[in-house]
């Protein structure tokens, strides 16, 4: 049998890199398959993979056999027929074990188009010691008011302790993700049922004002260029009192090798305003197979392996339970070993609390919590994100930023033909 070489495009995060180093297990089991890794930073990855998938379509000349895609792309790509459906995964894969919130987002017309590698929501990570010092207590489900109060209490700029670290870097996957989720809890939405942008609404105004308030008063300097990584580094150095961000961060901030505050981290659900929606998102990195791949069968074997229970066990054995890719399988959270992991419970609860189908208080025509699952969103999100970061940098007022966002979005939606 000729050996086939799979070219796998992955994002450069810790879990994916771990998979790369453990992939010898897979090739040992499948001697006919060689793996070729292309690891790229998220933006570059998305751009490269999209160009490739979109230009090759269904013709058999895609450069990648397995691509790492997010929950944003999967429904769009599946709709274009760019991904191979994964209905025929082996029985031991146990599709039904996947968390429904995640699985729903990857299923279009009843067909699964990508296998989740890990899933995440967002939650509050906080410093127990600082909360204690401030004389406050963090409930499991805090409100935004409490967050504001705690942030104010914990801030000690002279000692470089900042009450709250939030994303400020422009980008639809960066500040826009956070703000969209936050806006949901404030009762805001991107579009109304007629796709009219809603940035001129009161809830958005409140969202942005509160956000700016928090970050400028209690956040670290340079917040306008902080993304996930920058904040992670800050938190690990003990410079953040609270950090509202992806649940996957939990394993990093509790890892004593990297974090100076590993034993002081507490977790809580993302805050709410009592409107029935919390400010948390839902995201999963998944593995999909481009329709243009020349090695669909081998690719399926790999995808099944990399997202299987077996792989989870392999990681647990090699790296410990805390490093298992989280958020994809019910069975993981049923595992008593895993329940010992401090953030396991809160991660699961956060994921369960997100509802991509009905993300907002008021009805909307789109799905997706912190994004809008339409192709135009990447571009719009980037433009809106730039406005929000400009507001944070003090270049424009909140009012002005929202007004610009409204205009830009209207413009793009008009061009895309949403209003005839």
């Amino acid at each position, binding site marked *: 049998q000729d050996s086939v070489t799979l*070219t796998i*495009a992955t994002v*450069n*995060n*810790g879990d994916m*890199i771990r998979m*790369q*180093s453990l992939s010898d297990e897979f090739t040992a089991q499948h001697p006919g398959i060689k793996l*070729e*890794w*292309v*690891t*790229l*930073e*998220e933006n*570059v990855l998305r*751009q*490269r993979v999209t*160009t*490739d998938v979109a*230009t*090759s379509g269904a013709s058999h*000349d895609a*450069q*990648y056999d397995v691509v790492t895609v997010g929950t944003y792309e999967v429904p769009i790509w599946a709709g274009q027929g760019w991904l191979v459906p994964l209905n025929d995964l082996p029985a031991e894969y146990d599709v039904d074990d996947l968390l429904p919130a995640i699985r729903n987002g990857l299923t279009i017309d009843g067909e699964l188009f990508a296998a989740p590698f890990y899933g995440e929501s967002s939650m509050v990570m906080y410093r127990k010691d600082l909360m204690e010092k401030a004389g406050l207590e963090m409930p499991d489900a805090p409100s935004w008011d409490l967050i504001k109060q705690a942030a104010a209490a914990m801030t000690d700029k002279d000692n470089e302790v900042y009450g709250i670290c939030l994303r400020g870097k422009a980008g639809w996957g960066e500040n826009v993700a956070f703000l969209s989720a936050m806006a949901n809890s404030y009762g805001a939405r991107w579009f109304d049922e007629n796709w009219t942008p809603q940035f001129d609404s009161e809830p958005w105004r409140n969202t942005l004002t509160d956000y700016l308030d928090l970050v400028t008063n209690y956040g670290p300097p340079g917040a306008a260029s902080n*993304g*996930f*990584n920058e904040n*992670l*580094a800050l938190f*690990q*150095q003990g410079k953040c009192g609270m950090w509202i961000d992806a649940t*996957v961060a939990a394993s*990093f901030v509790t890892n004593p090798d*990297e974090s*100076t505050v590993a034993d002081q981290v507490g977790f809580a659900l993302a805050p709410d305003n009592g409107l029935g929606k919390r400010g948390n998102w839902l995201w999963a990195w998944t593995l999909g197979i481009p329709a243009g791949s020349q090695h669909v069968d081998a690719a399926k074997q790999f995808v099944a392996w990399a997202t299987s229970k077996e792989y989870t066990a392999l990681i647990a054995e090699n790296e410990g339970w805390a490093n298992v890719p989280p958020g994809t399988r019910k069975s993981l959270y049923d595992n008593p070993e895993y329940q010992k992991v401090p953030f396991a419970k809160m991660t699961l609860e956060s994921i369960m609390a997100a509802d991509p189908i009905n993300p907002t208080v008021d009805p909307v025509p789109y799905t997706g919590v912190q994004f809008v699952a339409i192709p135009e969103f990447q571009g719009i999100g980037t433009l809106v994100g730039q406005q929000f970061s400009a507001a944070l940098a003090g270049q424009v007022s909140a009012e002005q930023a929202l007004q610009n966002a409204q205009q830009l979005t209207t413009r793009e939606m008009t061009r895309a033909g949403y209003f005839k």
Partner: protein
Amino acid sequence: MARAITPRRKAIMTVIAWTIGLLIFFPIFWTVLTSFKTEAEAVATPPRFLFFDWTLENYAAVQERSNYFRHFWNSVVISFGSTLIGLIIAIPAAWAMAFVPGKRTKDVLMWMLSTKMLPPVGVLVPLYLLFRNTGLLDTRSGLIIILTLINLPIIIWMLYTYFREIPGEILEAARMDGATLKSEILYVLTPMAVPGIASTLLLNVILSWNEAFWTLNLTAANAAPLTAFIASYSSPEGLFYAKLSAASTMAIAPILILGWFSQKQLVRGLTFGAVK
């Protein structure tokens, strides 16, 4: 100006020059230094200068993640390949412009340079489709073709300015001596222009080595050079300064060392006729 330079003045100049030189170099020095620190030490305040536990763990981590040597080799093949092919095309062209100049020569040269102003993002999609259809995607030959075209104007210009310094009489002498056009270029012009050709080669190898747009967008795994290698570090998760530094060091070290060793040569040719 050959008047006595007082040792005092020389000492002062030495201090100033070294300070400025070290300041300019500092970012690179710091990167290299950081690559030997642990992640925690990399972000320590105040910064640690020399007193820390030197470690190679970041290099190990980087190597584990991606096959450095393959990227390295791709970079070598692509940058040298494109430059050499460029030279082969450019030498005759520069010969013609330098020794048989016409009214249009200058215009042609300027037009050639202006093709370098083509913004790559604007034409990525068309070229991507073109490459896909010709099977050049993710091949070293594909990249060599692109980089040859990108660098050709600079190569021609550099050679042209170099050739112009060579007295035409020598080529005429060769012609009188019975040399054909081919032997004239092969045995007389090219060897005489070796210093110029060498610096052209160097500069264009450096430019190709650092070219990040096309090399990133037209490769996947097989032909990916070091620019793609570094692209996977532009924002990994968690503390990453040390690993980033290690990867950066590995990406720039080869060309830095090559550049340093040949700097005399490089600098000498880096004048584009600006110096007569």
